[in-house]
């Protein structure tokens, strides 16, 4: 179970480039739940994910996973419990190293790494078993460098690597945004398959409302560094893309009113 409490983060504080990316985000993820995070550009959805992953430390607030406070843990230490897939398909794999070596690294996620052999015959059989469900004919190419594969194949492998040891929390950061529609659909199917099979607690950032509607059991809608809406259970199941669009429109109008009211008051009183 992941509990995020009053998370706050301001970038470039005290300068003209000051950005209040997170203004007090709180939510709790139940075990085995699949949550989609939606939001406009600059709403803080990716910042939220990076904060949970440990890319930076929050100014305020706590991040607790299964009763362990990891707010001040560095990124590599959180990897013990957290698996990650990045937006950029090139970020999740080491290009000059073989598929087998990448998988071997993933099977040691968060564990001590000693002087044992990175790749053995027995491990290779396991790698074959791992890549089989991808249907990408990678079984015979385990020794070729991963950099030679397409973005979609690399993203699928990253997903496989991130989920290999059944992490307590799986973070997906718009992991299909940089792929062409066909490949994206494949990676989404794979995501659905792995998450359901291993019952992983998943937090997925997306900007595709269709994905958010189709997948998972909960939607967090972010706006201006806060959770604006939180849909669960039956509400979430009944939600359609049009409903989400209407909500975004509503948020946009609210912003516009804020601005026009401010102008009105300024004209009148200042």
């Amino acid at each position, binding site marked *: 179970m992941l509990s995020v409490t009053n998370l706050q983060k301001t970038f470039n504080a005290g300068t003209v480039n000051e950005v209040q990316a997170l203004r007090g985000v709180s939510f709790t993820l139940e075990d085995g739940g699949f949550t989609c995070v939606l939001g406009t550009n600059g709403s803080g959805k990716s910042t939220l994910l990076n904060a949970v992953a440990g890319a930076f430390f929050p100014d305020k607030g706590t991040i607790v996973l299964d009763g362990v406070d990891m707010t001040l843990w560095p*990124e590599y230490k959180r990897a013990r419990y957290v*698996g990650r897939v990045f937006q950029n398909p090139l970020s999740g794999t080491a290009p000059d*190293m073989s598929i087998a070596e990448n998988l071997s690294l993933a099977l040691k996620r968060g564990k001590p*790494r000693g002087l044992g052999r990175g790749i053995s015959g027995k491990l290779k059989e396991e790698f074959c078993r791992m890549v089989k469900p991808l249907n990408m004919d990678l079984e015979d190419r385990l020794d070729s460098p991963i950099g030679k594969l397409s973005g979609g194949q690399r993203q699928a492998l990253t997903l496989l690597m991130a989920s290999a040891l059944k992490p307590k929390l799986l973070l997906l950061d718009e992991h299909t945004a940089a792929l062409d529609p066909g490949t994206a659909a494949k990676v989404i199917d794979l995501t659905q398959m792995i998450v359901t099979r291993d019952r992983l607690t998943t937090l997925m950032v997306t900007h595709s409302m269709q994905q958010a509607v189709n997948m998972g059991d909960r939607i967090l809608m972010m706006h201006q560094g806060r959770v604006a809406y939180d849909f669960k259970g039956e509400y979430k199941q009944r939600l359609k893309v049009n409903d989400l669009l209407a909500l975004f429109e509503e948020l946009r109008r609210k912003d516009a009113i804020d601005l026009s009211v401010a102008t009105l008051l300024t004209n009148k009183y200042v």
Partner: protein
Amino acid sequence: MSILITSVIIGLILSLLALGIFISFKVFDFPDITVEGSFTLGAAFSAALIVKGVDPLLAGFIAFGGGMAAGALTGFIHTQFRINPLLSGILVMTALYSVNLHIMGRSNLPMPGSDTIFSRLESFWETVVEPNHKMAVLGWSVDSKDLLILLVSLLAVSLTGILLRWFFRTHIGTAMRATGDNAQMIRALGVNTKTMIVLGIALANGFVALSGAVLAQYQGFADVQMGIGMMVWGLASVIIGQAVVGESGVGYLIFGTILGSVLFRLLVAIALRLGMNPNDLKIITALFVFAALILPVLLKRRKGFFKRKDYA
């Protein structure tokens, strides 16, 4: 012929330096100039200890440890204080100059008649054959003791290469290579990349110092200037090696680096023999590495140029 044998021996000794540069530059993508100081550090430790009567092999081990400490310091400065890799190396290299002078007590420390690895080999060989025993190799008469040294160096370097290949294929070695290849990815898999960099640069400078220690024993002296230009020298070896074996597995690259070091030393020996001014050695090495670095970029640009023409 004997000049060729000597060149190959020195090439093999310097291949330990090249392996160090391979680790920092190729594996970690870390332009580590500490080597110019740690190479001398190894030589200084080796010479100063041997003059005091310490076992030459033990002196080599101590030199390796000293080099590791220097490398670890560079890695530490870079990772903990976020100082640029080159600048971290320059700081440690500059400081090492004073350290080396203190260790040696003066700028040039000869060790005439001292007990070194090579004097031991020679005295061992004299118990087997009579002094100045000659052998015919391809029609040339050469000192058989030089051949013995060549053989032993080749064995020792091969063993080091095999050991290094084994290490880089273990779990921790694979994680090190991944740190240089994609730090973001390996952090997300739970590896402390800072520790990896400190360890890796330490290991690299251990090899560099060992190379300096063995070279000092071979030539019979240590000099505070002997590290100058060694980084580019090592780079040249790594680049030649890669050109020979191609971009392939870590084992091939290690083999290529050793081969590159020997080939480069031979090239230099031949050029000097053909009348090249020894003073020009460093500028030619630098030009060579420059050419090797820009050539792939130029070739790519040419390809791009042709492509654009195709579409037009």
